């Protein structure tokens, strides 16, 4: 288990996520807005590439390529002096953390990766064992928020009391490297705790809470019917629980719930009452951020205007 006290607020490389950038840029701007107000020392570096996550989990990249790309990103983080990789996307988090473990424990892979770097003249990318620590250099942005939950509570500008909020913790955050989760991987409560600090009423438990979002990497594209069935099961359960706000922590889950909720409504003839956002967007809102210029709600599929009016933000 990761201890809250061990979560750093210095030297964080806010790891850019391609899916955030292309679908929900507000997740990045909201996280930065909140980090700025919490006094967190972080940087964003354009030299950092995608972690290969999507290709890795659609089976097109093999492990060696993923490890080499990760080693390069680790070098980017170290060179700019911000070695605490902090991800917006749960898959980036898991992929980087696993790659670090592999590079530290498997000399054959490490040597192979380094020989590629040397052959290409990229000597500054060479990875030595222990350059990064798989346990202490990798975080998800939601962990940083959790570690500042007291400050978040103090900075609250709106009254979200009575807002029934449910969380969807990303499986690649808590089911891949499950020993390194803040709290229990059987019942993670990070998002709920942060939402409560913003004044919302977290639902904490609902049926199928730990069910995956259904995206399943290739599944949404190759087995769309099954994929949407999984998503629907979760939305059904949330509807039964009377949830009005669903909070996530990963752009891929976000796409699956926010983009596909209207599709499911149409294809399955159902109707849902909840809206979606990333927990960082919710914290930013609570601190008084602009719903469009900072939170970027104009890129969401399920309109948030009703929710914003009801809570007095619009």
């Amino acid at each position, binding site marked *: 288990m990761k201890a809250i006290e061990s979560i750093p607020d210095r030297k964080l490389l806010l790891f850019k996520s391609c899916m955030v*950038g292309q679908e929900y840029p507000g997740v990045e701007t909201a996280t930065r807005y909140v980090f700025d107000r919490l006094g967190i020392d972080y940087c964003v570096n354009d030299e950092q590439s995608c972690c290969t996550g999507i290709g890795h989990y659609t089976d097109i990249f093999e492990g060696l390529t993923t490890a080499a790309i990760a080693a390069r990103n680790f070098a980017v983080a170290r060179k700019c002096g911000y070695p605490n990789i902090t991800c917006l996307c749960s898959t980036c988090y898991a992929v980087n953390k696993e790659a670090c473990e592999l590079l530290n424990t498997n000399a054959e892979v490490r040597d192979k990766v380094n020989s590629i770097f040397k052959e290409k003249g990229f000597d500054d990318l060479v990875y030595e064992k222990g350059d990064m620590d798989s346990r202490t250099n990798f975080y998800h942005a939601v962990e940083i928020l959790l570690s500042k939950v007291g400050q978040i509570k103090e900075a609250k500008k709106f009254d979200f009391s009575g807002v029934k909020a449910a969380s969807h913790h990303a499986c690649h955050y808590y089911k891949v490297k499950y020993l390194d989760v803040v709290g229990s991987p059987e019942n993670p409560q990070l998002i709920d705790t942060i939402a409560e600090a913003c004044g919302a009423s977290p639902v904490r438990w609902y049926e199928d809470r730990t069910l995956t979002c259904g995206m399943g990497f290739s599944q949404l594209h190759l087995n769309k019917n099954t994929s949407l069935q*999984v998503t629907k099961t979760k939305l059904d359960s949330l509807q039964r629980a009377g949830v009005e706000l669903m909070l996530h922590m990963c752009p891929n889950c976000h796409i699956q719930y926010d983009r596909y909720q209207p599709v499911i409504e149409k294809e399955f003839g159902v109707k849902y009452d909840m809206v979606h956002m990333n927990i960082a967007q919710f914290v930013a809102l609570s601190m008084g951020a602009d719903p469009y210029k900072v939170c970027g709600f104009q890129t969401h*599929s399920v309109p948030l205007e009703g929710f914003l009016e009801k809570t007095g933000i619009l």
Partner: protein
Amino acid sequence: MIPYVNEYDTPNCNTLAETAKKSIRTPESLGLDRCIQCGACTASCPAARFSDYSPRQIVKKVLENDHSVLESKMIWSCFYCYSCNVRCPRNNSPVTIVQVLRQMAINEGIGVEKLAYFLEIGEYLAENGASKVPETGIRNMEKDLGERWIGIKRNLGSTRSEMGLSSRDFRNTNGEVQAILESTGYFEREKWIKIKIEEKRIHGFVKTNYSDKDKKNGEFGFESDRKYTGQEAITV
């Protein structure tokens, strides 16, 4: 057989179990031999709940060194959600074993047509340092998500600018990502996969639509249990 041997994901070993254990896709502490066939993985598995799939059975086949598992449609149904990974009481990891099996299948040209959809991710990453949804995916999403999403995507550049971001998620990788993909053998492998897909297309093996309509509805109904009438009560 693939010319570029995927030696780290699928090391050449005598048995499927050894390959799975040695592969860098699986954790070093993989408890494959410790599997007690308890079925906790299948009980937590969304693919098992909604389709004909069973991680427990896949693990069993691997332990029995039954290579027919590579041909089974089942291995392509996993969501990679890692629920089995967190729930297994024996530190086994069906999800990463399935990843190895898919790589082994690919090496033999099995199921490669399923990769067709995603192959452009590699070139896009090399060129741009980022990933994106493949073109076919975008067309499907346009169909499914309609005008609102198409509009969002059309305005993305100006929306990003209004939010104080660069109009495009720009990455400056100095050609390093491209070079890395060349050196790991990624492009060779990609080329080989493309040829295999083309061969299959010519021979008419590639279906354009993979989705299975007759899925389970997610209710926990146990077919075999229903047929089982139970033991007769002992009456004295």
